[in-house]
């Protein structure tokens, strides 16, 4: 894998402290490397700084020490190579679903004739067809999150950063969206960095899972998920290694 020499994301020795009355060390000497087209999840306890790490890679939060490189370039702010999906769907309530789907491309100044076919295709693929003229509040939480993902995929980002994108959804919807996300990813193979609380989600989706310690956050373990792709829930969950990964990560996370 010669690509390993040219990682899509490289985080080297990064420090982050939140100043204030009580200084909080959020991240300490974080190191990680993600190869192009790799799907990597970060697991960690609440407050370990995994969302902060994602925001640093996204260019949304400044950091103190170390270096963050995306496609060998130092991160200095939000970049058009990156798409970020947040836990809240961030739909604008005053726009229709269709307008929300097109909003990202508008803000990124992607020409309409280039974005429109892509958006139409995503609308179809994400099961949002027929809802384009509805407003987001008329949709279920799962549908809104699909639209949020569609809005970002319409930007055709090389790198997808996802901060607990399904964290606010019920377990059933979450499982369904995991399957859909994987289907899309298997076609397009963006580089993905996913922050999640769910061990099962991390194992099902990822090539590698990074485990972070409690505050100040550091990457303490790395587990390579050696399960065949394309993955389907009905087959993957039969695989004995699936259960082993779940229990290994559960132990690391202190679940049991």
């Amino acid at each position: 894998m010669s690509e390993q020499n040219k990682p899509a994301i490289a985080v080297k020795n990064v420090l982050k402290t939140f100043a204030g009355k009580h200084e909080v060390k959020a991240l300490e000497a974080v190191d990680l490397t993600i190869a192009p087209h790799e799907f990597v999840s970060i697991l960690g306890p609440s407050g370990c700084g995994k969302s902060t790490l994602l925001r640093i890679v996204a260019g949304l939060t400044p950091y103190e020490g170390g270096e963050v490189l995306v496609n060998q370039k130092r991160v200095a702010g939000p970049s058009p190579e990156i798409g970020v999906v947040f836990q809240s769907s961030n739909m604008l309530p005053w726009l229709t679903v269709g307008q929300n789907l097109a909003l990202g491309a508008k803000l990124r100044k992607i020409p309409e004739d280039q974005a429109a076919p892509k958006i139409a295709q995503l609308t179809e693929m994400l099961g949002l067809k027929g809802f384009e003229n509805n407003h987001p509040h008329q949709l279920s939480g799962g549908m809104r999150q699909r639209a949020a993902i569609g809005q970002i995929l319409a930007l055709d980002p090389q790198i997808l950063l996802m901060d607990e994108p399904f964290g606010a959804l019920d377990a059933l919807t979450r499982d369904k969206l995991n399957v859909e996300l994987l289907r899309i990813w298997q076609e397009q193979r963006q580089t993905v960095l996913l922050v999640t609380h769910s061990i099962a989600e991390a194992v099902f989706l990822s090539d590698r899972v990074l485990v972070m310690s409690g505050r100040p956050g550091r990457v303490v373990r790395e587990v390579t998920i050696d399960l065949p792709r394309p993955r389907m829930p009905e087959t993957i969950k039969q695989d004995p290694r699936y259960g082993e990964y779940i229990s290994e990560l559960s132990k690391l996370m202190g679940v049991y």
Partner: protein
Amino acid sequence: MAKRWLEAIAFWGLLALLWEFGVGWLGVRRYLLPPFSDVLIAGWNAREPLLSNTWVTTVEVLVGFVAAVVGGVLLGVLIHISAFARRTLYPLITALQSMPKIALAPLMIVWFGYGFASKVAATFLFAFFPIVIATLGGMQNVAINLDEHFRALGASRWDFFWRLQVPAALPAFVDGVKVAMPLAVIGAIVGEFIGAEEGLGHLMTMATANGQTDLMFAAILVITALAVALYAVVERLARAVWWRGISF
């Protein structure tokens, strides 16, 4: 629906009856509070001056109110986008807002004369500040997650303003407009009290001076009806901003 109307009619009818007969039972003198029927009769007899003066006051209110909305929005936005304006104009506005507007109304007469302009100025003075504060508050009330989302999408300052802050500010803004509308009516009436040759406030002062308490009450009813009608229009328009309190 029918029940709601019935309730309203019964309630207001009861109040009218209470007024009509209450003054008799309690022996209130007519020049202090005439019975409701006297007020209606006085109003009917004076319908022509009442209507023409209502028109005068309405135009004053509308011109002053629209000027306050336009000026208030411009100033609110300016304070929002310019740190310099926030340091200089904002404290000035806060100071001016705490001045009693009624005390400034005579000054408007001195500056702008007895006619139309001073009433518009008084209306403006009363309605302006709530609009500034509501506009500014609304612009600064953008949900933090949406702000971050727009940053991640590399939104330009213009897009931030036009696609996010303005629509997000509208619910607070229309609340400010709702506060300002009745204040605009008060402004015009106060201006007319202090010095005018026409308008409902002028009619009221004339009626009081002539001991026509019934006509004065008729004018009060018309002013109230005018204020309620204008508020209803604003309320109706404000329904276009329906996304209050929705966030995902």
